[in-house]
């Protein structure tokens, strides 16, 4: 007997007993729903972490060179922490040297940041503004768009002209309802001319990115606000394509070792990070959840399998006569076995489909009412379908084997 024939019989059985079929596969539905919902949310979270979070902090296709890591591992020991704190910062001149000597195509930016008070000179002040001193490439590397005015130029950056670009929150606080471009602000008392207004940046995990102002690194804040005059915290090198990231990473590492005059055996006394590579903490959480998931899903699927097995046994005993008829007409053991296996697989496959639909729905619901993003993954759907059908096949083996072993004479005589 062909598989299509068996599937057709299975579908007819499901149609004839819709309620029972539903309750039979409930365990499978729950397991698969859970699987899909959790994977969908984790994948969404993963994409968010990699594309949004790490992208915003490290930058897309970007290699981040720092004294200590920005996102990666925390120091493991007290000694390591002390070693990190002893490391020197890179200087603005070193950053310029890197930009001049790197051969991988790309754009290099450097920056430092320090919190300071910003006033409009007429009594309005805002404290705790993140003052960023940067070179002219910073806006492009960090993908920060200007909604009014302009960024500062290379000449302004080189000469340290006191010009500044304000974040939305700063502009709203100091110049409510006015165009801030052309106004003058005082950054820790230092006068700056506002030449641009940033697009709204939003928040990352609740931390606002709009309470900031960006000025040339060599302008008066260098030493005036930022005490380590001439130094920088972040050096970012952005390459045009993702596949260049590894090459850039190794070249920047090599150049930084040259700057630090490290011998071949000496370890790096600086950190090189990429958005993809620096999410160690997230990978740990993600990995843990992905490990826990199979156990949670497994429990529901095992329950589901037990229910399916029991109902298949009921089905076999109810249909003993049918099995007898089929055997009398020439069905071999393997025909009966296949028929019941396919029935169980079809049944739980339906449960799988239902679970996939419910799981996607659940994930969408969760992402609609919470900041957690959802991302449906084809792999998860495939896995869910595989598990769904697999549960039925595993659960169906014993009932199907019992059916195939029935004595045709006894089976024909049953009511």
């Amino acid at each position, binding site marked *: *007997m*062909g598989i299509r*024939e068996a599937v057709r019989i299975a579908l*007819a*059985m499901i149609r*004839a007993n819709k309620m029972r079929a539903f309750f039979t596969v409930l365990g499978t539905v729950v397991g698969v729903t859970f699987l899909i919902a959790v994977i969908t949310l984790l994948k969404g979270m993963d994409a968010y972490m990699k594309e949004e979070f790490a992208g915003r902090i490290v930058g897309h296709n970007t290699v981040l060179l720092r004294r200590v890591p920005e996102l990666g591992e925390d120091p493991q020991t007290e000694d390591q922490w002390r070693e990190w704190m002893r490391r020197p910062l890179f200087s603005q001149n070193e950053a310029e040297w890197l930009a001049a000597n790197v051969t991988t195509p790309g754009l290099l930016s450097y920056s430092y940041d320090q919190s300071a008070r910003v006033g409009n000179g007429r009594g309005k002040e805002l404290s705790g503004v993140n003052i960023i001193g940067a070179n002219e490439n910073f806006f492009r590397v960090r993908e920060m768009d200007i909604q009014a005015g302009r960024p500062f130029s290379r000449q302004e950056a080189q000469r340290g002209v006191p010009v500044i670009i304000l974040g939305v929150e700063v502009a709203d606080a100091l110049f409510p309802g006015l165009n801030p471009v052309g106004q003058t602000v005082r950054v820790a008392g230092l006068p700056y001319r506002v030449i641009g207004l940033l697009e709204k940046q939003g928040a990352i995990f609740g931390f606002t990115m709009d309470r900031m102002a960006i000025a040339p690194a060599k302008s008066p804040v260098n030493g005036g606000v930022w005490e380590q005059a001439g130094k920088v915290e972040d050096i970012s090198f952005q390459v045009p394509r993702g596949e260049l990231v590894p090459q850039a990473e190794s070249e920047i590492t090599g150049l930084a070792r040259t700057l630090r005059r490290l011998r071949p055996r000496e370890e790096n006394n600086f950190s090189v990070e990429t958005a993809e590579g620096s999410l160690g903490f997230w990978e740990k959480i993600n990995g843990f959840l992905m490990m826990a998931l199979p156990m949670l899903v497994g429990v529901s699927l095992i329950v589901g399998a037990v229910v399916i097995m029991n109902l298949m046994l009921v089905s076999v005993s109810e249909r003993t*006569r*049918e099995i*007898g*008829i*089929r*055997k*009398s*007409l*020439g*069905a*071999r*053991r*393997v*025909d009966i076995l296949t028929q019941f296996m396919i029935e169980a697989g079809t049944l739980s496959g339906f449960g799988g489909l239902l679970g996939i639909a419910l799981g996607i729905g659940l994930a969408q619901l969760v992402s609609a009412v919470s900041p957690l993003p959802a991302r449906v993954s084809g792999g998860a759907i495939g896995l869910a379908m595989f598990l769904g059908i697999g549960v039925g096949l595993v659960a169906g083996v014993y009932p199907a084997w019992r059916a195939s072993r029935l004595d*045709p*004479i006894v089976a*024909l005589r049953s009511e």
Partner: protein
Amino acid sequence: MSTAPIIQARDLQKHYDLGAETVRALRGVNLEIHRNEYVAIMGPSGSGKSTFMNLIGCLDTPTGGEYVLNGQKVAGMKEDDLARVRNREIGFVFQTFNLLPRSTALENVELPLVYGGFGKKERRERAVQALEHVGLGDRMDHRPSQLSGGQRQRVAIARALVTRPSIILADEPTGNLDSVTSEEIMALFADLHAQGQTIIMVTHEPDIAAHAERVVTLKDGVIASDRRQTPVVPAPHRQRAEVAVGAGV
């Protein structure tokens, strides 16, 4: 008959081991049935006729003796080989019809061909032909519950015929039918026999056995009598024959 018998039972025995005692249902049956014979097997309950039918129908294997069906030694066969022999050589007709309730008449008739490995197109053609043969060409899409008892038994007969088996094995085929319908079914059997079909019918009703040309009676697990007779021609068959003759003139 000069040809080899289609059924050859030699010293056929069947014992059931019930722990403490052994029931000897068949104690050595010798029987030959040739192609195109119409045999009724009779006997009171407990005579072993059901056991004998199960053996002839390859639903069971004998404890001792030999059984050759259409040249094949059935006695030592494994279950799957028996299934193949049932599929190819035997068309069962049961007292309780034994149709699949959720399948249409056509699907029921197609079923043995499904297990015989026939393609969809050939299955359909042969099933339609078999249903037309038993006069149910207009009821093919009906489910058993939508058919009368006589019609159900016709579907079962079509199902038995569709594989073109060596023998039709009917077990009390009229046991669940009223006398008029029984006569119709007997007329159909007479037609099939006239067309060359070998029919073996197990019954305890002498009226029904009267339609066969040979009556084998079992008693206490052995053959008590084996006699030939002139079959009674069923009433509807006579009528139809007259109509056919009239139409032909």
